[in-house]
């Protein structure tokens, strides 16, 4: 059944006040290099490795669809450990899911751009959560999304430096 057509007054005035209310809202855009939205939990970004719990089973390298993981020897450590080539990685997260000891974890960091290809290849001892200060030196605020009933979506700002 067709819904009833709104009245003339509603058709004329409703859009005006609906739009005018948006003047009270905060902009949803943000100044990216200066402000950065904190990623949601389970965002699939940079992958970290805990070398103390890793047993070097190689499941991650076996399951990787892009063959971005290679098992490499680290001096002074008993096993072979995965090294990541983020130039090949498609961030599918299969390695993290299949890791039997949960040594691999995803983070929300996606700022991995590098001037050289070798900058994208991370040996096992470098697979620690990278420093955002180094990756985004301009960043001043970290944002967290929130929503309010009256004012719509907005950001909670936290000054980083």
């Amino acid at each position, binding site marked *: 059944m067709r819904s009833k057509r709104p009245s003339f007054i509603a058709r004329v005035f409703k*859009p*005006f006040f*609906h*739009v*005018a209310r*948006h*003047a009270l*809202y*905060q*902009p*949803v*855009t943000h*100044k990216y290099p200066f402000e950065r939205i904190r990623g949601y939990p389970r965002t699939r970004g940079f992958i970290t490795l805990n070398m103390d719990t890793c047993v070097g089973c190689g499941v991650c390298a076996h399951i990787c669809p892009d063959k971005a993981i290679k098992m490499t020897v680290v001096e002074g450590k008993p096993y072979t450990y995965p090294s990541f080539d983020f130039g090949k990685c498609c961030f599918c997260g299969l390695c993290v899911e299949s890791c039997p000891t949960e040594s691999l974890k995803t983070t929300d960091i996606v700022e991995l751009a590098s001037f050289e290809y070798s900058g994208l290849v991370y040996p096992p001892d470098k697979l620690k959560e990278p420093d955002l200060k180094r990756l985004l030196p301009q960043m001043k605020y970290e944002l967290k999304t929130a929503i309010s009933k009256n004012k*719509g979506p907005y950001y909670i700002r936290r000054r980083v430096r």
Partner: protein
Amino acid sequence: MDMTDLTYLLEILLFPGLGFILGFVVFAVWYQRKYLARLMIRMGPVHCGKVLGWLQLIADALKLISKELIVPEAVHKKAFIVVTFLLPTVPAAMVALIPFAKGLVIFNAYGFNLILFFAISTLYPVLSVLKGWAANNKFTVVGAFRIIYMDIAGEIPIVLSALGVMLWAGTYDLQEIIELQREVWFVFPQILGFVVFLIAYLAMIEKIPFDIPVAEPELVLGPRTEYSGAFFLNTMLADYVNILAWTLLMISLYFGGYLGPSITGNPWIDGSIWTLIKLLIAITIVFTVMISYARLRIDQAVRLGWNYLIPLSLINIMITIFVKYIVLGGAI
């Protein structure tokens, strides 16, 4: 040169004159971009200038001025160049007739300011049509003809609704009309006329929902399509000065013009401040209307003008005559 001559020169060059008009255009473009961005929950210009991107417009203007002046081969060269420089002067002449405070008006037409305002305003569409015709392009010519349509849809109701105010006030002088609003603004006794004036005003300033001549998805930029660089800047300037002139007229006719509680004690400064405050509120409402509604088709706009606005404004005139001369006996 005595003091009155110097004051008059400053009036022409600075406050209600050239400086104010150019300043208003810069402010209005910036305000439009910033305010519309807020209504769309965006930010608008941000990076140029430390605060609120205020340098963006100056950068844009400098960019446009420093561009190469391109005059296409097939255009009427003289008209193409002259019209763009002539166009902003017409609405600027309209602004010169508006009183900004008691006695603060650039050209006092001895009690015929309102009539002269409408007389000059008829020149603007003529020059706009010439602008479209001179460029000799499909889009510009179609845009020019749409300007004529919009003009016959908007100008007659706007003059007829202003006639209601003239009858109610019993004068053609804008300053006297404003002075008569000391007790009650004319928007209340002339509410029907105001509604007609508001809709016709939106048609006259050619903004959405009546930006039919410049319908971007259909006509690129309408009559302005072929203009680039400084020519484009001039046509845009003319657009915003046109908005300024009609908005000032609306404020003067219906919202008490420069009247308001005293702030500084100096009547000229008070009047100017109140005019500017009312101007800001009016253009805020215009910009809100701009993004609230969809564009009308040309036939819808002309039908709105002829089928509804003109009869309503005639009814308004009859009501005005009846109430003023029969109910109130000739005094308001």
